[in-house]
C-alpha cells in the first residue's frame, strides 16, 4: 500500500490535472485547485513530519545544554523554567515561553547578555523555521 504522503501527492495531481479542469463553476473550480495545493502541503508535512520532529527535539536538547551553561540560578526564574522545559515532550511549546521569558527579563539580564542569549535561541528558531519552510513552500 502506498504511504499516505505519496497517496496524497497523487491525489493532488489528479485534482490539478483531471478534476479541476473538468469543473466550470468558479467556486468548486477554485476549491478543486486549492485542494490540490493543500494536499501537496499535507503530503509534505507527512513526508517530513517524523524527521523534522526528531531534528527539532535534538536542537532543543542542545539549546537547553548551551543555555544552562550560559545562565545561573540568579537569572529570572521563568527563563530558567523555560530552559528546563525544552527537552520535555512539550518542549516545542517551551520555545515560545523561552522567548517570552527572555524579553520579559531583558532589563534584568542587561542588553549584552540579552543579545547573546537571544542570538543563541535564534539559531534554533532559524533551523526550525527552515524545516517549516521545507513543508510550506
Amino acid at each position, binding site marked *: 500500500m502506498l504511504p499516505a504522503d505519496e497517496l496524497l501527492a497523487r491525489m493532488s495531481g489528479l485534482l490539478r490535472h483531471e478534476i479541476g479542469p473538468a469543473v466550470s463553476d468558479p467556486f468548486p473550480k477554485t476549491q478543486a485547485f486549492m485542494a490540490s495545493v493543500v494536499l501537496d*502541503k499535507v503530503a509534505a508535512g507527512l513526508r517530513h513530519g517524523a524527521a523534522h520532529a526528531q531534528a527539532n527535539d535534538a536542537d532543543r536538547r542542545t539549546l537547553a545544554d548551551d543555555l544552562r551553561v550560559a545562565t545561573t540560578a540568579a537569572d529570572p526564574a521563568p527563563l530558567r523554567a523555560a530552559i528546563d522545559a525544552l527537552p520535555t515532550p512539550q518542549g516545542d*511549546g517551551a520555545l515560545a515561553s523561552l*522567548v517570552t521569558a527572555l*524579553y520579559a527579563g531583558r532589563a534584568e539580564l542587561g542588553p549584552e547578555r540579552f543579545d547573546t542569549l*537571544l542570538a543563541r535561541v535564534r539559531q534554533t*528558531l532559524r533551523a526550525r523555521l527552515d524545516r517549516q519552510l521545507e513543508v510550506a*513552500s
Partner: protein
Amino acid sequence: MSGENSSDRSMTDRIADYLGTALGTTDLEMTGVERIAVGWSHETWLFDATWSAQGAQHQRGFCLRRDPGNALLRDLSNLREQYRVLQCLHGTAVPSPEPYFYEDDPAILGAPFLVMEKVPGECPSPWGREGRRFYQEAADRGVLPGDFTDTLVKLHTLDWRGAGLDFLGVPEPGTGFILREIAKWRHLIDQAVAEADLDPVLVDVLGWLEANAPSTDRFVLVHGAYRTGNLLIHDDHVSAVLDWETPCIGDPMYDVAYMLSELNREGTDLLSNLVEQDEFIRRYEAGTGLEIDVDVCDYYHVLYSMRSAAFWLSASNLFATGRNPDLRLARTAWSVPVVLDQAARRLGF
C-alpha cells in the same frame, strides 16, 4: 456556496424591498444585479435602480456590502465603522463613495449591511495576469502613477479632526500609535491561536516590535492598506479609495512603508506595479511637506510581516473553526512561516 443562484435571487428581492421602503417608493426596479467575485471580505453587490418619488423619476447605481459574519478581519473591522468613515470622508478631497444607509438589523437581509454610491471605475486585482497588464499599461501612459501618489497625499493632508475622524481614536504621541497597532494585531493572533501554540518566531517578532518601537507624533488619517486592488480606477484616475477596513489615526509612514514594501511590487521595480520609487518619494514629500523616514519604514516592514502572520493565522482559523468552508483560507496556514521568514531575515536571523 453552490446552489447560490436561488438564494441570490431571493437576496435581490429582499434588497429591492428594503431600498423601496428606504427611498419612500413602491415602484423600485433593480437591474444589472451583480455579485462581485467572492473575496474573503464582505459580500459585495452592485446594481442600478430606477424609482419614482415626489413626482419625479430617479435612477442611480448602488453598491451594497453585507457582512455574513465569516469574513476575514471580522473582529478588527465592522460595517458600522466603515459606514461612519465614509460619512466623514464624504465631501472631503479624498475620493470615496457616498454612503446612503447602514442597517444593523439581521431581520432585513440576514446580516448587517451598508448601501453606498456605485462609483464608476474598475478595480483589477494586482495579483492576476490581467491586473498586472492593466497597471503596467496605465504606468506606461503615465497619468495614473501621479494620481495614485496624489490620492495618498490627499489622505495624509486631510483635516481628520475637522472631518470628525477622531472617533477612530487618537493615539498618544511617542510610542502610543505603534503599541496600539501591535496590540490590535496581537489581539487577532490571540483569537486565532492558543498561547501555548504560538510560534516562537512570532513571539520573538512581537517582543522585538514592542522593545524597538520608534517614537511618532505626526498623525494623519492612515488607510492601512493603500495599494492597487483597493482603489477604483476610472480614466487613469483614482475614482474612489475602497476597503476601509483598517483605517486609523496614526503615523503617515505606516502607509508609506506599505507602499514601499516589496510585497506590493508584483515582481516589477515599480511600487504597486505602478509608480517609480524616486518619483513617488519626490511627489509625496512635495505634496505633504513630510519627509520620508527610511528607518521608521524599515521598522514598519517588520510590523507588516507580523500583521501578515496575524492575518493568515486569523484566516486559517476561520476555516479551522468551521465558520468559513473556503479552502483558500485553509491554505493560508502555510503562508505563516513564509512571512515569519521575512520578519526573521529583517531581524538578522
